[in-house]
């Protein structure tokens, strides 16, 4: 065998070994499950981008207590995951596709790779056989190799792109700052409106949810920043023009700045939500 062929075989063996290690790593469980490991697989249902393991919200703490209880009862990680799916739906899982699908993602390229190895072995045998030597150099055979090689490159590329996306998503969820709407509400209740503003802004950076923006607008109003509150309320109203709470905060923000349009905005709020808990107070304000 020539040096070139030796190198080709060596490359194939190395690639096969790397693929084997990858499959093993994606399937093998390195340690018995604990609360943090199971909690890392579950989304906190009341938070934005946080897992049950990371979140400081009351519901995440309760879910961790429930995981601990179930682990003490001897339930497996898969059973506990399913228990939460039964109660919160499949969206409670940080990786709804599950390990089985991830295994398939590894096995499929491995199967494709095996096909190429088989082809290579067949060709190598034919090359050593004098009967078929004339076939090996044919353009059709070369063309076939080109197609298979191209297919393999595309396949590996697709897997790499998907794998990178999955990795980025998981990194984003674990490296997210403490962006917990409930924590911000607790801060509001404790009177720490500047702290709540900061948290709402961080939450909104990852998830532009109108309800969170309204909470931000309200917290801004309470920290005497009516101009910023007005901006936030107007942002919500551009997408949701009939959102009564947005009109309420906008009207109050306008009023705090002495704007002439405040009364009209608050009247519009009263028209949309005459039974709102704040309606009586607003009626008194607008006269």
């Amino acid at each position, binding site marked *: 065998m020539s040096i070139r062929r030796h190198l080709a075989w060596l490359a194939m063996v190395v690639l096969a070994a790397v693929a084997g290690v990858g499959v093993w790593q994606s399937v093998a469980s390195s340690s018995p499950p604990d609360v943090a490991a199971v909690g890392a697989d579950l989304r906190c249902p009341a938070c934005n*981008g946080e897992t049950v393991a990371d979140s400081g919200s009351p519901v995440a703490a309760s879910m961790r207590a*429930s995981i601990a209880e179930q682990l003490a009862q001897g339930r497996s990680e898969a059973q506990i995951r399913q228990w939460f799916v039964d*109660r919160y739906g499949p969206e409670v899982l940080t990786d709804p596709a599950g390990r089985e699908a991830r295994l398939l993602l590894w096995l*499929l390229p491995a199967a494709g790779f095996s*096909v190429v190895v088989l082809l290579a072995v067949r060709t190598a045998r034919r090359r050593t056989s004098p009967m078929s030597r004339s076939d090996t150099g044919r353009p059709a055979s070369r063309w076939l190799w080109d197609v298979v090689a191209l297919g393999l490159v595309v396949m590996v590329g697709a*897997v790499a792109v998907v794998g990178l996306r999955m990795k980025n998503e998981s990194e984003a969820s674990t490296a997210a700052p403490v962006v917990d709407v409930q924590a911000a509400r607790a801060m509001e209740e404790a009177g720490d409106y500047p702290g709540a503003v900061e948290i709402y802004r961080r939450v909104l950076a990852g998830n532009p949810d109108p309800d969170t923006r309204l909470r931000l607008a309200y917290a801004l109003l309470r920290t005497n920043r009516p101009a910023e509150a007005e901006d936030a309320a107007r942002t919500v109203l551009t997408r949701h023009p009939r959102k009564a709470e947005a009109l309420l905060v906008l009207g109050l923000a306008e009023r705090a700045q002495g704007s002439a349009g405040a009364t009209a905005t608050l009247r519009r709020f009263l028209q949309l939500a005459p039974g709102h808990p704040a309606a009586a107070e607003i009626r008194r304000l607008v006269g």
Partner: protein
Amino acid sequence: MIAVRGGRRRPGRWIVAGLGVVVLTIVLGTGLGGGDESASTTVSTVREMDEPAPALRGRTLDGGSFDLSELRGTVVVVNVWASWCSPCRQELPVLASAAREWAGKVRFVGLAVRDDEDDARALLREVGATAVTTVPDPDGTLAVDWGVRGVPETFVLDRSGRIRFHVVGVVSGEWLEQNALRLAAGP
């Protein structure tokens, strides 16, 4: 000759097989990597359902014992609350009033989640909600068993113990009348 014929057939087969693997990989990869948009948080949403209620039993804040399964035959409203939750404090008087008014028709049960028991008792006294049987849930595991995401949340159970409504957020007296009381008045 046989080897030559086999060689002529092979390219087509391999091309189809190779392309099949590529397409399948891309489809599978796309399916796994996408379609996982997290639902945005909503408040005061009502979900109609028809599922058996999880178990709910334990001691009550007034020192008694409670077992939900003993209330079969009665429409039950299970309210999940905490004294540290402002909306819950606004909602509890509504529930207390309905519990008094509809006594014998609809039974109101509270689940005080991750709450200081003295604070919870004080709030019940303050809003006149002592008629609402309340089970403390100090670590929140009972609430998680019910699929609770936050407080307040309310479940309306029919006479056979099945959950018919799940409300995330505050409920009004009007809503309770239209749903829980109507359920109690039904066949």
